[in-house]
């Protein structure tokens, strides 16, 4: 069974038909990259998986979005629980105005966890998973804003991991970072794959090629091609995909 799947998904922003009949299945413990020019619908599609589009006015969604076999848009689904299972990392690092420790502990506290020992352990584990522990272990009480941009982004990843999701959605997580910080996040994505299912939206073709197992190419709201990343970047089936990834348009 696929970990995440979309079946004939259409999304409208008012009259704007932003996603057109998108059908896609993603397996557990894989990294899937969504690529495509700006406005192609890739971020909109990503946000469907933790219902981030729900609050946007005039949005209408058709089709099925299924996580672990469950339609996440059914009335019985709790959005809070869904988001506990599906973490998200955004384009710009957005730490809370709190200490490094409290940023990571925040999700647990919101979820009612009070066990200090457990929280300490989860904070350490999450920071280690996010490859940040050695850099911050001696200054956990310092403000998260004292960290560099790359460290802040890894802190946000640690914060997402602390509540033990099974899926991590990343929306252009390195677009605001320098090459070294980008490299660290990419290594992190590679290592996290063993425990999580990761979906990453990126404008960086080489990043998609480096980090993902599968790549989905979107254009004008349609899923043009979805295949093993190796195939997409060596022998894409569709000429539109080829023209985009070789920089001939977009």
């Amino acid at each position: 069974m696929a970990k995440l799947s979309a079946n004939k998904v259409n999304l409208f922003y008012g009259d704007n038909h932003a996603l057109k009949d998108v059908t896609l299945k993603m397996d557990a413990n894989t990294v899937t990259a969504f690529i495509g020019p700006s406005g192609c619908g890739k971020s909109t599609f990503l946000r469907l998986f933790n219902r981030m589009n729900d609050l946007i006015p005039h949005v209408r969604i058709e089709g099925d979005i299924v996580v672990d076999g469950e339609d996440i848009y059914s009335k019985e689904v709790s959005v809070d629980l869904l988001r506990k299972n599906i973490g998200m990392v955004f384009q710009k690092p957005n730490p809370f105005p709190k200490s490094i420790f409290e940023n990571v502990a925040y999700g647990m506290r919101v979820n009612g966890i009070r066990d200090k020992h457990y929280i300490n352990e989860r904070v350490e584990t999450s920071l280690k998973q996010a490859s940040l522990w050695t850099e911050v272990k001696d200054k956990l009480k310092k403000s998260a804003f004292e960290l560099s941009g790359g460290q802040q982004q890894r802190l946000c990843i640690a914060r997402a991991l602390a509540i033990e999701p099974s899926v991590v959605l990343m929306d252009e997580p390195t677009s605001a970072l320098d090459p070294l910080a980008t490299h660290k996040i990419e290594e992190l994505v590679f290592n996290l794959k063993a425990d999580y299912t990761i979906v990453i939206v990126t404008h960086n073709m080489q990043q998609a090629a480096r980090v993902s197992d599968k790549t989905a190419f979107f254009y004008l709201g349609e899923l043009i091609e979805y295949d093993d990343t190796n195939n997409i970047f060596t022998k894409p089936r569709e000429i539109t995909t080829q023209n985009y990834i070789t920089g001939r348009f977009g």
Partner: protein
Amino acid sequence: MTHLESELKKIKDNTLEMMHIVRTQLSKGKEALMTSNKELALEVMHNEKRVNGYELLIDNSCENVIACFSPVAIDLRFVLATLKINYHLERIGDNADGIARNVIDIKEQWNAELLEKLELVKSFEIADEMIGYVLNSYENEDTNLARKVFEKDKFIDHITDNALSTISEYIKSNQQNVNQDLYLLLLHRKLERVGDLVKNIAEEIIFFVEAKVLKHKKGLEG
């Protein structure tokens, strides 16, 4: 045209130029052989340096494009295929050079009757035709032309096989000029090798244009 496209075009232009030079080298090698023209043979040997120069230039350009542009899809296949085509072309150049060296080595006139029987000229003509096909195929990304090479290569192989038995029979009854007979065998072997190398080039062109791998897959050339 994007920056990458212009870099790829330069590589393509240089490779086409190298194909033309190698074709000319082989054609001059044939002429030097048939007319025992040692000066022309020396010219072929001298021009081998140009072929080597192109090999280095194309290698370097491909390396730069990979390092600086990270090409993908058809662009990546083009660069990878061209790297190999470049290598095969240099080897064809080596064979033309070898033919020219044989012309220098042989002191006596060729046995015209034996030469005719061995169809050496025919092999040269087929090899030239094959290079013409891959040249146009590479230039116009026309894989139908590349595929024409596979049948032609079998022709050369057939002529070479026949030459081997003909020479071996000839030596049995005529041992006055064994040295020349052995050279003729070597020349056939060189042309057979050229045929194989042109076939490899055709396979690379098909890989580049169609993303199909034909190497080591007999019978799939069509």
